[in-house]
């Protein structure tokens, strides 16, 4: 086939729509539909929508995708991409193997794991990486939010009407993020901000019962039933280990979305393109496929 698109977030879905309109022979593989956009609560900066929720926007994307006769496999996890001698590629997933002349990596990002003792053990048992999803389960409870940037502040604002007590555990000397959000958090009597605070261990017995932290080096045990982790994200770059990346692990692309390996393109939040925004990712997905179409036409003439 002509193209395998990896990932069905805004970049991958837009790419698929463009590829369908160019009548490319392709498949869209993704473990989920919508990626991080599906987890956004409110979207107020996608042109044409003054306000839409992330899930609703993703439903719109899905509707658009279904206008075309596209082969898309949701729930399929790509394991790796390898290069063949004839400059084509093999994409291996947990369900199959695909030979293709080009590959578009649009695999996005995932939350950065806390990676301290207890994190993995208590995931979904009090440890949550989605305050929007799991926040309401901690009504009237004490919780800790780990992080000090906008996403941590956002989680904090979401939890303020719900939780009885919130510890904001920030590793830096002061909070980062927007002034407006910061002030609301600082003014809340429910929120105790711990700066210079390093998370050491999630404590519990079946479910979370506490969080061990070191504040300015002094150990302290917070009695909480929920731990929300908001410490940034990392690119899903593992499947394309042979392409060039920057020090942050982002796949380096040029203005035509080409990686340093001819035939491998990338788009969206997995790349070094600045500004991780839904509309930027969607635009990059479109741009990438137009570039791929040109690449395929040029190669077709040569061979």
């Amino acid at each position, binding site marked *: 086939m002509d193209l395998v698109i990896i990932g069905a977030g805004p970049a991958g879905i837009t790419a698929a729509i463009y590829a369908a309109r160019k009548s490319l022979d392709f498949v869209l593989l993704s473990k989920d539909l919508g990626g991080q956009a599906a987890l956004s*609560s409110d979207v107020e900066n996608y042109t044409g929508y003054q306000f839409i929720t992330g899930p609703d926007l993703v*439903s719109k994307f899905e509707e658009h995708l279904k206008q075309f006769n596209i082969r898309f496999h949701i729930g399929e996890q790509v394991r790796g991409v390898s290069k063949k001698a004839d400059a084509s590629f093999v994409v291996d997933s947990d369900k199959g193997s695909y030979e293709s002349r080009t590959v578009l990596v649009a695999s996005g990002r995932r939350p950065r794991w806390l990676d301290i003792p207890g994190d993995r053990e208590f995931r*979904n048992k009090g440890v949550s990486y989605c305050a929007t999803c*799991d926040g309401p*389960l901690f009504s009237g409870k004490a919780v800790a939010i780990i992080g000090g940037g906008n996403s941590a502040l956002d989680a904090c604002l979401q939890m303020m009407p719900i939780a009885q007590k919130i510890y904001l555990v920030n590793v830096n000397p002061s909070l980062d993020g927007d002034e407006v959000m910061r002030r609301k958090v600082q003014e809340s009597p429910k929120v105790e901000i711990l700066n210079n605070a390093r998370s050491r261990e999630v404590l519990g017995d079946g479910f979370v019962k506490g969080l061990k932290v070191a504040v300015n080096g002094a150990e302290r045990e917070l009695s909480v039933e929920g731990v929300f982790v908001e410490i940034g994200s990392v690119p899903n770059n593992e499947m394309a280990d042979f392409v060039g990346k920057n020090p942050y692990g982002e796949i380096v692309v040029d203005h035509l979305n080409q990686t340093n390996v001819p035939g491998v393109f990338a788009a969206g939040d997995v790349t070094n393109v600045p500004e991780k925004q839904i509309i930027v990712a969607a635009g990059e997905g479109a741009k990438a496929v137009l570039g791929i179409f040109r690449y395929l036409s040029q190669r077709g003439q040569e061979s």
Partner: protein
Amino acid sequence: MAIKVYSTPTCPYCLRLKKYLSDEGVSFDNIDVASDEPGLREMVNVSGQMGVPVVVIDGEVIVGFDQAKIAQKLGI
């Protein structure tokens, strides 16, 4: 076939799960665990965890919006 969905009103995957079932014409009982405390305890008991959504189809517990698994179980 008895289908129970444990969800919160805000969780994006809950919304997608409920929309998916409705679009497929599948009827289900929705338990809002944000406001229904006994419902929340029941969800924790049957699934052994606190993440939403949880869907129970004929006694089988599926955690998260696992569309492939749900489709297979429902034969759609």
